[in-house]
C-alpha cells in the first residue's frame, strides 16, 4: 500500500507521457503530432517537478521563519526545458505552414504519397531521356 501511495504520482505521469508518445507516432495530422509532442514534454516536466516536492515544504522563496523548502533545482531545469519546448513547437508549426503551402496537405499519408509519386515520375522522366 505504501508503495502505491509513494509512487502513484510517477505512474500517473508515465500514463500521460505514453499518451503523448502514442499521439506522436499514431496520428497522421501534423499539428496533432506537435500537440502530442507538447503533451509528452509537459508530462516529463511534471515528473521532474513532482520529484522535487518535499512533504510539508513551501515554495523556494526565502521567508523569515520558514525552514522547509521544496528543491529549487528541478524548477530551474524545467524552466529551461519549457522554453526549449516552445522553441521546438514554434519551429515545428512554421514548418507545417510551409509544408501546407508546398504540398497542399498536412497529413502524413498524403505527403508520403505525393513524395512517392514524385519519385515514380522522376524515374519515368529518366527512362525517356
Amino acid at each position: 500500500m505504501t508503495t502505491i501511495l509513494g509512487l502513484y504520482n510517477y505512474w500517473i505521469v508515465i500514463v500521460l507521457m505514453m499518451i503523448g508518445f502514442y499521439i506522436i507516432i499514431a496520428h497522421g495530422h501534423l499539428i496533432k503530432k506537435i500537440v502530442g509532442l507538447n503533451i509528452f514534454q509537459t508530462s516529463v516536466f511534471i515528473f521532474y517537478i513532482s520529484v522535487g516536492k518535499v512533504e510539508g515544504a513551501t515554495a523556494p522563496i526565502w521567508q523569515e521563519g520558514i525552514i522547509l523548502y521544496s528543491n529549487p533545482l528541478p524548477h530551474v531545469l524545467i524552466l529551461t526545458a519549457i522554453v526549449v519546448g516552445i522553441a521546438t513547437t514554434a519551429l515545428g508549426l512554421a514548418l507545417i505552414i510551409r509544408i501546407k503551402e508546398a504540398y497542399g496537405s498536412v497529413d502524413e499519408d498524403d505527403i508520403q504519397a505525393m513524395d512517392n509519386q514524385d519519385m515514380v515520375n522522376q524515374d519515368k522522366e529518366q527512362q525517356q531521356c
Partner: protein
Amino acid sequence: MFAVVMLAGIYGLVSASFFVAMDAVDVAFTEASVGAGISTLLMLTTVAMTGRTEHMASHKPLLALFVVTVTGGLLIYGTFDMPYFGSADAPIHNHVAPRYIYDSMKEIGVPNMVTSVLASYRGFDTFGEVTVIFTAGIGVLALLSVVQRPKSEAVIEAINDSMHEKHLILRVVIKTMIPFILLYAFYVQFHGDYGPGGGFQAGVIFAAGIIMYALLFGLSAARQVIKQPVVQLLSAVGVLIYGSVGLVSMLNGGTFLDYSVLSADPIAGQHLGILLIEFGVGLTVASVMIIIFFSCSARSEYQQAKKGESL
C-alpha cells in the same frame, strides 16, 4: 482541429495549476504564459492557415501501441526503486540543494532561490536557453519571412475602420488594458528577484501585449510601431548583453559569468549581474515571440495575396 488546440491549451493551464500545487511557482508562471498562452496562439494561427478538418487514418496503429506499451512498461519498471513522493531524505534533497536553499541568501542576497540558481549558480544554462530561443526566432524567420511591401496609409485606415465596426467592444477594452499588461511585464521582469518572475515570464507577457494589439488593430498598424528590423536587432542585442556580462567578468579576473567581480562588493556584483542578464533574457524572449507571431501573420497575408492574384 480547433477543439484539439483549445483542449491542448486547457491542458497547459491545468499543468500550471498542478505546478502551483507542487510549490513550483516560477515554473507555473512560465507554463501558464507559454503553454497556455503563446503555444495555443501559435497553434491557432497555424490551424487558421492549414484547415480545421482532419481525415482519419485507415490503418490500425498496432506498431505504435506496441512501442508505447514497451516504453511505458520500462518506465514503470524503473519507478519501483525510486524515492517516495515527497520524502525529505531523497538523494536530491541532501546533496546539492541545501547550499542553494540555505546559503544563497548569504552568497547572492536574492530571496527567490530559483532566480539565484537560474541566474547565478547555473547561469550558463540560462545563456544556452536564451540562445535556444534566439535560434528558434531565426529559424522561423528563415522559414516564413517574406519581403514586405509597406501598405499605404489609406489601406491601413480602411482595415482599421472595418475592424472597428466588427470588434468594437473588444477594441475599446483591450486598448485600455494594454498599457497595464506592458507595465505588469516590467514589474515581473524586475521583481523576479523577490517573488516569482524573471526575464522569461516578463518577455512573454510583454510580447502578449503587443500581439493583442496586432490581433485587433491589424498587422500593418502594429508594424508602424514595432518595426521588423528593429525587433530582429533587439533579439540579437539581448543575447549579446548576456554574453557581454560574462566577457566583462572574464576581463575583471573572474571566470565567465562570475558576477562577484563586477563590483567592489561581491553581493552588489551578484545583484548587478543578475539584473543585467535577466534584462537581456527578457529583451530576447519578447523580441523573438513578436518575430514569430509577426512572421506567421505576414505569411498568412502573403498566402492570401497569392490566392487573390491567381484567381
